[in-house]
């Protein structure tokens, strides 16, 4: 009996500690994105408390915390965003797959308590208009068309403010995009259709819209801010040298005048605009997998002061009070979870507000480095290799994790949680920014088009080869795992290089390229054109699309395969998964499968993620063990 109890304790204890790594890495962060109001006296933050995600309001003068809205972590509803609408009003957005988005509006009363003032269904905050106490710009679809409304927060009549005649989006491009100025007026209307981009601006003293740009889609022209008194439209474009730069464009003569922001050999990732007045305050870009923020003089002096008080580098500003007296920073350092700080200029002190994942502090986390390789055609590829903290000078297995997309997405080194989970399990993880990844310029981005299963995978293999040259990897233990395009890449890589990879894991992966065209019967024209541009025209290159589809070459698979899918994935429909499963079964291939009926593209529920990653880790380990068994048997013979 004693033995039985001991065995039970051992098994229970083992199972528990085994699962705890997964639950530590995949549970939701407990403190996310704190936001100050303009006066700097209140703070909103999303917290995870027990089994709930909560929006908590903190009175910074009295340090009193009040929960405002809480949603169970098991609920199909989640808190998607929250923001200040002036000093005393704020909004919380929730979303669920069935009902779509809800917008909860709150007002802080004289006692400092938040009271719900409205609930607006299918409505989003387009522009918070933080300097105006009584209104914000709301976005809502009406009759399938996008509309903006100037919503009066003091009015008790809510729905009547969304009548069609009250929309403020009355410009030449009805279904296009809009910019709103700091006074709440729409002043830029632009759109791209059939490869033609049109841009219109509206001066404050005019009722007319004036066209200032019309050109083919070859030159990107993305308006950022219109300053009518200077006849200046700030525009992101890659017109020179193929990298996104911020330009000043003169709307009187319709000409580019000068470059405002640029980075050598990289795209500008983001332009930072002061929410309180129409001025630029900086920009950001990604280099070496790390986000760099360049600020104007006022903000960079504050960043320096904060850095001196905390001795923590790589901090960047999330938001600040209107008088710059209070600033919130994130120390989004590489290879560690984020921490948030409040810097108070009046007393020159920084205070730790919260940590996203403090429970990970007990782990020795891995460290990343940049790997640069040359692909088959000489194109330079930047990848990131994250190694376990302790390898005891032994070679470690490698997990290659190509990102999704494949176009316009890139990996960074800012603590990708799945990478660090696998590193904690003892793998080195390689995340390649293959051609098509964002941030490396237009030429690199476009080079990823029509290269599914071809040059993109050459890029990935070049990165693997470079890592193998370092001598830290056990070359007989390499697997490839990806989500979405990464899942496709895992399958096609298994077909291309069974000599290199020991197993492949495809999670929500594309398995049949032509199905991307025929999957949704009601395919809209815009999506169809985009697919043709990215993949090739099925009418002209049908055989190629079939040739590079894993399901039609499944007979070539020689290594173990794991496929995983959510039943409510609307990005990569579960038909990709079921086709692969059908074919693998017919061909009697070695594979495992994992399906969650109610899950979406990239599982949403923490429990589903934990279950999946435990299975994947077991699958990889078993693949390595089986490989060793085969090797041993071969040696015996």
């Amino acid at each position, binding site marked *: 009996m004693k033995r039985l109890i001991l065995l039970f304790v051992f098994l229970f204890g083992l199972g528990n500690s085994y699962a705890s790594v997964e639950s530590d890495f995949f549970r939701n962060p407990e403190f996310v994105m704190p936001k100050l109001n303009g006066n700097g006296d209140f703070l909103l933050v999303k917290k995870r408390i027990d089994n709930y995600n909560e929006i908590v309001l903190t009175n910074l003068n009295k340090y009193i915390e009040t929960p405002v809205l809480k949603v169970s972590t098991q609920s199909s509803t989640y808190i998607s965003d929250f923001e200040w609408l002036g000093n005393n009003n704020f909004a919380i957005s929730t979303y669920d797959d*069935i009902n779509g988005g809800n917008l909860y509006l709150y007002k802080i009363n004289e006692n400092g308590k938040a009271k719900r003032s409205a609930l607006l269904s299918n409505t989003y905050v387009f522009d918070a208009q933080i300097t105006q106490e009584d209104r914000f710009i709301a976005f809502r679809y009406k009759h399938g068309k996008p509309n903006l409304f100037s919503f009066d927060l003091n009015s008790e009549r809510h729905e009547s403010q969304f009548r069609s005649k009250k929309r403020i989006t009355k410009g030449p491009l009805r279904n296009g995009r809009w910019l709103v100025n700091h006074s709440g007026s729409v002043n830029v209307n632009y759109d791209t259709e059939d490869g033609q981009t049109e841009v219109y601006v509206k001066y404050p003293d005019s009722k007319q819209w004036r066209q200032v740009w019309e050109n083919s889609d070859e030159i990107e022209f993305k308006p950022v801010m219109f300053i009518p008194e200077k006849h200046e439209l700030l525009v992101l474009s890659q017109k020179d040298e193929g990298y996104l730069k911020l330009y000043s464009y003169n709307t009187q003569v319709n000409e580019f005048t000068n470059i405002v922001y640029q980075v050598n050999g990289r795209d500008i990732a983001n332009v930072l605009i002061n929410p309180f007045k129409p001025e630029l305050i900086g920009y950001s870009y990604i280099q070496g997998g790390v986000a760099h923020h360049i600020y104007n003089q006022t903000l960079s002096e504050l960043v320096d002061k904060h850095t001196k008080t905390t001795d923590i580098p790589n901090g960047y500003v999330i938001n600040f009070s209107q008088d710059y007296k209070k600033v919130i920073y994130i120390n989004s350092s590489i290879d560690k979870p984020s921490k948030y700080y409040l810097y108070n200029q009046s007393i020159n002190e920084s205070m730790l507000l919260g940590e996203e994942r403090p429970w990970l502090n007990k782990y020795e986390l891995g460290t990343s480095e940049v790997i640069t390789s040359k692909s088959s055609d000489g194109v330079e590829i930047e990848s990131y290799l994250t190694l376990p903290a302790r390898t005891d000078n032994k070679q470690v297995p490698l997990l290659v994790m190509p990102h999704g997309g494949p176009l316009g997405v890139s990996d960074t080194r800012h603590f990708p949680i799945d990478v660090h989970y696998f590193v904690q399990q003892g793998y080195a993880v390689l995340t390649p920014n293959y051609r098509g990844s964002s941030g490396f310029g237009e030429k690199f981005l476009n080079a990823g088009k029509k290269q599914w299963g071809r040059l993109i995978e050459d890029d990935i293999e070049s990165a693997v080869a470079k890592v193998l040259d370092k001598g830290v990897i056990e070359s007989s233990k390499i697997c490839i795992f990806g989500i979405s395009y990464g899942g496709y890449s895992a399958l096609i890589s298994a077909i291309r290089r069974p000599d290199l990879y020991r197993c492949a894991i495809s999670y929500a992966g594309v398995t049949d390229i032509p199905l991307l*065209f025929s999957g*949704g019967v*009601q395919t809209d024209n815009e999506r169809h054109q985009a697919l043709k541009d990215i993949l090739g025209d099925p009418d002209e290159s049908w055989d190629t699309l079939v040739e590079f589809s894993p399901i039609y070459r499944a007979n070539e698979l020689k290594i173990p395969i794991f496929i995983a899918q959510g039943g409510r994935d609307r990005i990569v429909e579960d038909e990709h998964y079921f086709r692969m499963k059908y*074919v693998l079964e017919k061909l009697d291939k070695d594979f495992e499968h994992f399906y969650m009926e109610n899950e979406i593209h990239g599982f949403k529920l923490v429990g589903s993620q934990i279950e999946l990653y435990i299975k994947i880790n077991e699958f990889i380990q078993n693949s390595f063990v089986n490989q060793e068994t085969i090797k041993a048997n071969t040696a015996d013979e």
Partner: protein
Amino acid sequence: MTIYAESSFTQKLLLLLSVIFTFPALAIEPLEKDEGYVLVALKVEQGYLPTYVTLSGEGWGNGLKYDLKPTSTNYWLEAVEAGTYEWDRLYLNKDVYLDIEDAELTIKVEPGKINYGGHLLLHTTMNASRNSLLGGARFYFNNKASKAMTYLDNNFPSLVKDYDLIYTGEHKDHFFDYAKQLKGVKL
């Protein structure tokens, strides 16, 4: 191959049940001249299960009407006159229905073939018990050819051998041709 979420006991039970209750091949009427088989599929992903559904055909009296069984996915296979059929209404009860005709979800039936146009997937958050529609409904018409193939393999194996199975959606699909080749390899 591994199937998760099924204990070995469950697997044994399933095996036993599958021996006892082997899928019997269903009977279906033979095709007349100018007729083809239409495979209609509806999956209720969430919410209310309609009592019956209708598809309109070309000309008066050529519509199709199917009653639903209380399962999340319903299939109907029938010999019909060649032509175009369009999803029309999903009746939640005798009086209340979702009219989806405007979405123009069609199945084009070619003579002498088994024609599959896609699965209609339905989400509802409505209460139709008092003859009123509260909440909303969303639907998708998606190509789920492998599920259609599995259904036909299990229920009409000889029909699939004897007739070409085609996807009738706007864009070309390679799966049925490939699945047929695979069977050729295996059988």
